């Protein structure tokens, strides 16, 4: 039986839920969280602390929880560092405690606690300095192993995550009293409203308190309000949704936990959705977070925040223990005592640091209020057994108890108000930071988040903020009438920590004590940002939500400054941890980026092609045939067959840009380094593009189909960049030119048909009205034709392989059919499909520069294209291509390499003189591309070599320390095949 279960609350007492924690099976109730269910079963010990491995229990009842972090689920669904306070219980839930060796009750690393004197703040900077080499190999791995949170399963997560986009007039963050009043106000005004609530129930503190409203029960008001909101089409209620970041211009990030509360998401549903919410206005009603008081051994299981204890008692009908003392500096602690007593839980004492506590809060029947008293120590290793109290008169008293409810006051929940670097300001009434004036654009704050701590105040400010927000965007609204509510002034005496304590915890999650802050102060780390980094105060999964202010207060005391003078650290998104999977959404694995398929993809797959990723494209790499056991056999065959007869290759992926307009030629003259003005209609020209700094960045062809119509091709890799740059030139540099651009890469399927028999194959499919004989359609001709009986097509007589070759383009939807037709018609010539490997081998054999040579460091002159750069016209990059240093004597030049002993030359190898040192200072150049040439019957390479054009015949060493290779190579012409280019023109 659940020993700490009470009656009432918002759980379903008739719905038992079985779950397991650390291998033990327990029973909770529908509506429980893991934390409430464990408490109900008398489990106070839920984890071990980060550094000292001290036994720890749950402290809060919400997402600010520093201690009760567990590993949820098993296998691929295992999730580390989940907060027991926010995990909704479901049947079959399994959870494990973290950061312990052996078991939670006996943690072998608990020895760290005995040596705590050596493990104070910054210990690793001091203790593990020597010997230096030990840090990486020994100290760091050991420390990392000992200090840490949960583990990853290292299995694939079987669930899917999604991203979504929402737009609204008003985003309301938090559905407590303020948020609900705001939602009613805005919903009734007809505004498009999103009401996001982190919890699975709406109501905020209403769910955790017994009082609140004076004329009706909060539960009734909640029911009526929710029903009205649910009936409004213009209001979207999003429970289980945490708004984690406030970004520029009213954009908010929100994580919806769609299926974290069920064992396995329903088929087709994501586990979580990361929403991007575009809000014209937002009202942050994120409530407040209670802060603890630090005292000696205040981290034992059973020490909890007083407001959290009320939440457990009133909402979840569970008490953390049968006997609870209260330690407080404000009236709120007294509420906890009253609620506990009302449920029959023993409260041996209310320890109130205020000497006038009774005057302020009154007596409480059933307990003793010890005004002016403080807790000076606690006992109980695995859970509180007693507290030692120093009474106002200086005497001490030991009070047995099993839990301590602590209240040091409430802090407005500032996160979202500060995500745009807004600085909070100090409020002397509530002794806390409240949002400053520099809120994110379009954001208002209401309720406790704005320092308004009464229920009446929260309701009123929620309604009024909604009116104000809607007025800002021209929507007329009237504040919803609010029920009469508690409106007591706050009575609090600031009190941060009990003086004289040896180890009083400030930050439970990072094991930061008052002593550590003293040490930081002593060593000069006094600014808040230094304090944070030296002690780790406020870091990790809870970001110090319950700890930061106490830390600042202690530092302020030490420096003699006020807290506002001491300042707060910067708040950054996310407000609570977000799984990487949710940020990635569906963009994982194969869907990480889009996959683009060429028109012949299906056909190539049928042929058994191997594919290679080229950017987003999948291209056929080679086409293995039966009997071929090695890719090289396939590639060599494809190269030789193409050079012997005819081959065909899908080159659709090359970028295509349609350039039209009266000034199209003038425009291309500015884009390309070489001239295009005089290119006749029906001709293609090779062109090279420079960056404005004079470095070559892309090459391709431009075909003139008409006086005012060109088709530009780019490399596959630069298709997007070239188009972008051309639009920049058109719109920003020469806006008067009559020229229009459109990317047609995906509109045309394009195939290279190469080899001595390529014309014969094409003549079988080009319609008879078009003469493509050598005379009528010579090298570098182009034209618009029809094929296969009337299908429009474009034909370009260009060659990348060095053979007689064409590229033929048809509208994409005919690409598959054209490929099949070419194969069919080419059968008599043994037409051979070839992939990117053979394409690469043939271009290396021919000595064409490609991406490996156009590598962002090479000029046109390095590539042997220097003469192409026109000096007679203005084009991008020509002025700076002429500056000193771009054309030095002895500059890099593109040359061919051939190993002298039949060795293999490797791309990336560096060239060194035969005699002389082998080091960077004597580097002669490097191999950019290399391949086995079945034509040369040797490994060959292209390289950039210092003064290369004057070193033909020289022998060098090609050294690749990475591969341990060192081979002798001879410098040769880059044109291994048909250096005169006769074949192109046949």
């Amino acid at each position, binding site marked *: 039986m659940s020993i700490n279960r009470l009656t009432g609350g918002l759980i379903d007492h008739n719905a038992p839920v079985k779950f397991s924690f650390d291998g033990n099976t327990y029973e909770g109730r529908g509506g429980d969280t893991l934390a409430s269910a464990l408490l109900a079963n008398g489990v106070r010990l839920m984890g071990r602390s980060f550094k000292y491995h001290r036994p720890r229990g749950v402290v809060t009842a919400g997402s600010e929880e520093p201690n009760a972090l567990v590993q949820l689920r098993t296998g691929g669904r295992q999730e580390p560092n989940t907060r027991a306070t926010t995990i909704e219980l479901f049947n079959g839930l399994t959870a494990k405690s973290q950061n312990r060796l052996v078991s939670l009750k006996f943690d072998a690393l608990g020895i760290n606690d005995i040596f705590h004197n050596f493990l104070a703040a910054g210990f690793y900077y001091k203790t593990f300095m020597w010997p230096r080499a030990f840090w990486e190999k020994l100290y760091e791995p050991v420390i990392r192993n000992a200090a840490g949170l949960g583990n990853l399963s290292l299995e694939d997560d079987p669930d899917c995550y999604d991203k979504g986009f929402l737009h609204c007039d008003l985003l309301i963050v938090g559905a407590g009293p303020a948020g609900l009043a705001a939602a009613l106000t805005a919903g009734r005004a007809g505004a498009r409203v999103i009401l996001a609530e982190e919890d699975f129930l709406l109501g905020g503190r209403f769910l955790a308190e017994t009082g609140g409203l004076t004329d009706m029960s909060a539960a009734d008001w909640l029911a009526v309000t929710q029903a009205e909101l649910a009936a409004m089409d213009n209001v979207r209620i999003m429970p289980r949704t945490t708004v984690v970041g406030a970004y520029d211009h009213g*954009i908010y990030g929100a994580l919806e936990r769609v299926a974290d509360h069920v064992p396995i998401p329903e088929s087709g549903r994501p586990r979580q959705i990361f929403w991007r919410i575009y809000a014209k206005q937002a009202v942050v009603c994120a409530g407040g977070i209670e802060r603890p008081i630090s005292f000696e051994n205040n981290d034992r299981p059973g020490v909890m925040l007083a407001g959290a204890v009320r939440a457990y008692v009133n909402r979840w009908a569970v008490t953390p223990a049968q006997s609870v003392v209260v330690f407080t500096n404000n009236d709120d602690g007294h509420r906890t005592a009253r609620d506990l007593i009302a449920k029959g839980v023993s409260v041996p004492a209310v320890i109130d640091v205020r000497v006038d506590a009774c005057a302020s809060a009154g007596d409480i029947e059933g307990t003793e209020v010890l005004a002016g008293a403080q807790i000076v120590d606690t006992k109980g290793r695995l859970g509180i057994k007693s507290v030692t109290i120093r009474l106002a008169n200086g005497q001490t008293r030991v009070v047995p108890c099993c839990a301590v409810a602590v209240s040091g006051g409430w802090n407005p929940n500032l996160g979202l108000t500060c995500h745009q670097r807004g600085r909070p300001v100090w409020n002397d009434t509530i002794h806390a930071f409240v949002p400053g004036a520099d809120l994110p654009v379009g954001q208002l704050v209401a309720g406790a988040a704005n320092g308004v701590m009464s229920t009446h105040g929260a309701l009123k400010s929620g309604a009024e903020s909604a009116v104000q927000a809607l007025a800002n965007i021209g929507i007329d609204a009237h504040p919803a009438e609010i029920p009469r509510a508690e409106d007591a002034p706050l009575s609090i005496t600031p009190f941060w920590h009990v003086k004289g304590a040896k180890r009083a915890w400030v930050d439970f999650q990072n094991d930061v004590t008052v002593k550590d802050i003293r040490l930081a102060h002593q060593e000069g780390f006094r600014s808040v940002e230094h304090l944070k980094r030296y002690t780790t105060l406020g870091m990790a999964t809870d970001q110090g939500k319950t700890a930061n202010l106490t830390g600042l207060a202690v530092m302020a005391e030490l420096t003699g400054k006020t807290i506002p003078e001491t300042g707060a650290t910067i708040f950054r998104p996310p407000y609570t941890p977000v799984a990487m999977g949710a940020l990635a959404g569906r963009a994982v694995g194969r869907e990480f980026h889009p996959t683009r398929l060429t028109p012949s993809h299906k056909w190539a797959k049928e042929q058994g092609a191997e594919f290679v990723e080229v950017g987003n494209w999948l291209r056929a790499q080679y086409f293995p045939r039966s009997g071929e056991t090695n890719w090289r056999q396939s590639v060599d065959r494809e190269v030789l067959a193409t050079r012997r007869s005819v081959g065909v290759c899908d080159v659709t992926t090359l970028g295509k840009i349609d350039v039209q307009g009266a*000034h199209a030629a003038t425009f291309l003259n500015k884009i390309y380094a070489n001239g295009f003005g005089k290119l006749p209609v029906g001709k293609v020209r090779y062109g090279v593009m420079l960056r404005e700094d004079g470095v070559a960045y892309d090459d391709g062809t431009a075909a003139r189909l008409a006086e005012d119509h060109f088709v530009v091709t780019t490399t596959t890799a630069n298709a997007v960049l070239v188009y972008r740059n051309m639009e920049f030139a058109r719109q920003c*540099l020469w806006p008067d030119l009559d020229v229009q651009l459109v990317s047609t890469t995906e509109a045309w399927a394009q195939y290279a048909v190469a080899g001595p028999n390529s014309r014969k194959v094409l003549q079988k499919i080009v319609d008879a009205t078009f003469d493509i004989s050598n005379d009528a359609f010579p090298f570098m001709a182009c034209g618009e034709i029809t094929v296969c009986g009337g299908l429009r097509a474009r034909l370009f007589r260009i060659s990348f392989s060095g053979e007689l070759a064409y590229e033929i383009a048809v509208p994409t939807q005919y690409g598959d059919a054209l490929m099949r037709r070419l194969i069919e018609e080419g059968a008599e010539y043994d037409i051979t499909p070839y992939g990117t490997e053979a394409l690469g081998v043939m271009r290396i054999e021919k000595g064409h520069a490609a991406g490996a040579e156009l590598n962002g460091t090479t000029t046109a002159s390095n590539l042997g294209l220097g003469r192409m750069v026109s000096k007679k016209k203005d084009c991008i990059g020509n002025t700076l291509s002429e500056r000193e240093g771009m054309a030095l004597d002895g500059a890099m030049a593109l040359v061919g390499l051939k190993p002298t002993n039949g060795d293999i030359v490797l791309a990336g190898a560096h060239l060194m003189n035969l005699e002389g040192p082998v080091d960077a200072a004597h580097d002669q150049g490097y191999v950019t591309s290399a391949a086995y040439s079945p034509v040369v019957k040797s490994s060959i390479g292209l390289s950039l070599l210092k003064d290369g054009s004057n070193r033909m015949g020289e022998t060098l060493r090609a050294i690749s320390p990475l591969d341990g290779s060192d081979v002798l190579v001879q410098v040769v012409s880059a044109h291994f095949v048909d250096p005169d280019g006769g074949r192109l023109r046949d």
Partner: protein
Amino acid sequence: MLIPHPLLGPRDAAEFIYLGDASLIDRPDWQSDTAAEAFHDYLYLRDNPAGEHRELWFHEQGDRSWLVVTRNTLTHEITSAELARDVAKERGRSV
């Protein structure tokens, strides 16, 4: 961020590619005597203001307009977005 596109209204910055200072519109005259220096300054020297900055954004996942956006680098407040083509014409750019 949201960029107020002059033709399309507010669009998410994720649809755009950022280039940099709008001074890149002012490409120097290649025939001037000091062309090399002018191009050097044009290409390599930029102001890095803490405050208002006029800068070029390309609506690549949209209508392919280049825009000149005036943005405060401290607050990300955007006070204007114009078609770069109009700006270029105003600044006297022509063939």
